[in-house]
């Protein structure tokens, strides 16, 4: 009997219609932990650099960890991994809800989907019974429709379903996967990978237990942490307002409110989208994920106006800003409606907002005309147009077909407006501006595994760390790092946060417990892991596993010949001073911070590749070998770029 983990991987080949169960051995489990760690390792080993993300050779991997399905607080999360059709490199996304625990109860740590079905299918996992079933009648259905039909068809409402909407079917490069209707694994276009396999849904019912090595000790650790979380200020605030609590400080105090595609960091009327306004006038009720005492999840109801009566899960802060101020909207009912729309069609709100914002800024600057847009006029904040455009993207109709490629590819296809694609490595930025949010965050944007995204490390130590007396000083040796716009110790802070987050994503435990709230510390994770699995490990060694995962994901990019030349924030953040608001005049000091981050990580400043000795130290000897020829090739690529630049 395996405790914590199930020790089993379910592998489904849709081309051959085969299903097999593989053992995940103890040494492997303890090396990679679970969830994101398992997934990243498998992707690196099985999906090589030549694989087209939308081909049958790509693999769609769902992973949960040793804590998933247990009483450990906020442990019900799932990581979904695949080579990304948006950025063309490493891709993963993390979702809450109840689907992951259900997979665990069914008896699996990981589900790997390979190949491509000849026609639309869905997967039905009922404990040991695994079946590939026809999904012709589900194709074209929105997320809530398909969820309802499947529950009827399978004769049970006590099941959990992860599925794609029309956007995933139509291979929109930023389509997402949702479970329990409104819980999205949104980023990096993994929904399109699912669609490319003709896989509409994965329905799961699990009735088995998750056993733990030391039940009494495990119960006590969970009880201790839950008592602490109850008293934790950040947990209380997240329960009260959800991530909406960010709007007011982001705009009025810190100046990183994303207005008009990051052209500004401040808007005088941002309070229309405040957490208070949402809570008091739009909040229907709260809904937490499995085993979560935070319950940051919202359900919203629109009471008045043309969308009156609409009820939807969400939105949270990134979505509300993506399909809101980023494209010129400040009305709560419109933002909530757009959130409902992107969820039901199965789109990632951030990249969808990013693509529309790119087009609107191109329009504003005169780079796009009605001839390019099928007659559409792309004015900021035109809700009638935005509603229409979101649908056109999901179904790849007309100009929507261009935007469905993502802002970066759209700029390439149209051969204009590249600077208005606010993205890194082809992956649209979340609505976070390092000219105000913080410098550790900025390092993650430039170097992160997904491309532009706040969830590389979520280094909230520089935002909320100061609320925890002595915490930042204990970790980084100085209180100066509590100042989000100070460069002091920021590479170290980002590294620490990234390693910790990789551990959390692998165990799995929500990043809000240890990287926003700091109620859960690495020592607590060690206690949870030891009591659950019997594994004997120190906090430092646990963080080193996090570091191993980060390095492997970095190597995934390096193998694609991506390194220091590509580690850049959008020019808007590094060259355009913030025009107004609390941070007027600020730029992100990338040139100072990134090389220092490389040093802290043990990455070569010349290439941005991890040094061979460092990889070996992390137990990645094979990766060190793999990267040697890539490093040489990358250096040649760099020389050619230099020569090209000199010629110009």
């Amino acid at each position: 009997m395996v405790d914590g983990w199930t020790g089993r991987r379910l592998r489904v080949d849709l081309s051959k219609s085969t299903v097999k169960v593989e053992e995940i051995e103890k040494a492997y489990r303890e090396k990679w932990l679970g969830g994101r760690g398992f997934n990243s390792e498998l992707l690196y080993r099985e999906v090589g650099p030549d694989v087209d993300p939308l081909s049958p050779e790509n693999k769609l991997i769902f992973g949960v960890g040793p804590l998933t399905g247990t009483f450990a607080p906020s442990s019900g999360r799932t990581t979904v991994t695949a080579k990304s059709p948006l950025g063309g490199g490493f891709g993963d996304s993390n979702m809450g809800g109840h689907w992951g625990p259900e997979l665990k109860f069914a008896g699996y740590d990981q589900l790997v989907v390979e190949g491509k079905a000849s026609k639309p299918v869905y997967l039905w996992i009922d404990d040991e019974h695994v079946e590939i079933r026809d999904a012709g009648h589900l194709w074209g259905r929105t997320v809530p429709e398909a969820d309802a039909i499947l529950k009827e068809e399978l004769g049970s409402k006590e099941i959990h379903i992860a599925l794609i909407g029309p956007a995933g079917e139509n291979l929109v490069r930023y389509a997402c996967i949702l479970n329990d209707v409104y819980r999205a694994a949104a980023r990096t276009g993994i929904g399109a990978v699912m669609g490319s396999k003709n896989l509409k849904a994965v329905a799961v019912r699990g009735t088995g237990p998750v056993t733990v090595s030391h039940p009494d000790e495990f119960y006590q650790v969970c009880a201790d942490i839950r008592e602490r979380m109850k008293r934790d200020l950040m947990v209380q605030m997240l329960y009260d307002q959800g991530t909406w609590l960010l709007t007011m400080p982001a705009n009025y105090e810190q100046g990183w409110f994303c207005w008009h595609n990051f052209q500004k960091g401040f808007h005088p009327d941002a309070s229309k989208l405040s957490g208070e306004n949402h809570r008091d006038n739009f909040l229907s009720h709260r809904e937490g994920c499995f085993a979560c005492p935070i319950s940051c999840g919202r359900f919203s109801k629109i009471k008045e106006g043309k969308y009156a009566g609409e009820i939807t899960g969400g939105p949270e802060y990134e979505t509300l800003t993506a399909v809101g101020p980023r494209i010129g909207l400040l009305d709560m009912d419109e933002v909530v409606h757009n959130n409902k729309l992107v969820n039901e069609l199965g789109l990632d709100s951030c990249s969808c907002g990013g693509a529309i914002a790119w087009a609107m800024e191109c329009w504003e600057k005169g780079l796009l005309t009605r001839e390019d847009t099928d007659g559409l006029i792309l004015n900021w904040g035109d809700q009638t147009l935005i509603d229409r455009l979101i649908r056109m993207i999901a179904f790849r109709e007309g100009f929507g077909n261009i935007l469905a490629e993502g802002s970066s590819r759209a700029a390439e296809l149209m051969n204009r407006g590249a600077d208005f694609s606010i993205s890194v490595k082809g992956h649209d930025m979340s609505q976070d501006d390092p000219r105000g949010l913080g410098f550790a965050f900025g390092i993650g944007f430039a170097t992160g595994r997904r491309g532009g995204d706040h969830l590389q490390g979520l280094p909230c130590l520089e935002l909320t760390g100061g609320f925890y007396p002595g915490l930042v000083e204990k970790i980084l040796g100085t209180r100066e790092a509590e100042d989000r716009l100070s460069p002091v110790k920021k590479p170290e802070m980002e590294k620490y946060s990234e390693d910790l987050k990789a551990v959390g994503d692998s165990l799995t435990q929500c990043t809000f417990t240890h990287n926003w709230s700091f109620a859960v510390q690495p020592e607590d994770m060690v206690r949870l892991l030891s009591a659950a699995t019997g594994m004997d490990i120190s906090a430092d060694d646990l963080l080193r596993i996090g570091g191993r995962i980060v390095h492997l994901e970095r190597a995934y990019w390096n193998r694609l010949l991506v390194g220091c030349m590509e580690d850049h924030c959008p020019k808007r953040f590094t060259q355009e001073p913030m025009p107004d608001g609390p941070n007027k005049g600020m730029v992100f000091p990338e040139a100072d911070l990134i090389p220092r981050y490389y040093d802290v990580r043990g990455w070569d400043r010349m290439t941005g590749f991890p040094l061979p000795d460092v990889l070996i130290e992390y137990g990645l000897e094979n990766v060190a070998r793999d990267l040697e020829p890539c490093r040489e090739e990358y250096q040649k690529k760099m020389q050619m770029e230099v020569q090209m630049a000199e010629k110009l």
Partner: protein
Amino acid sequence: MACSLYHEGECSPVLSRMRVVKYEALGRNFPSVCSQCSKPQCLAACDQGAIRLNESTGAVSVEESLCTGCRSCLVACPAMGFHPVKKVAFKCDLCGGDPQCARFCPSGALTFRSVDEFLMERRREMADKVILTAQE
């Protein structure tokens, strides 16, 4: 999860005395658990004397060693549970007076109080509507 871990040493919804009926599309949840009623149908249905009422605490519980696994009590009341391995019935026993579900409920959806406390709270809610509204 607190429930199944506390009682069975394993994390399993199937072993939990407290089950949640979910409506994912609406984001609504309905917790379902034994209400420790005064004329327990589960007790009446048990021919083996395995289900007993503790007079002092009011909790109705299953004596595992006497349960034959006939499942009559499951038919009598949906708040019962059945252990798939031990093949015996189980039910909420109020954890000896400190129900762990209520102890760890983060939102206040589950609380544990005496009947009188509960009723007085309801009465005050009603009274608030009259008194406090009149105040305004």
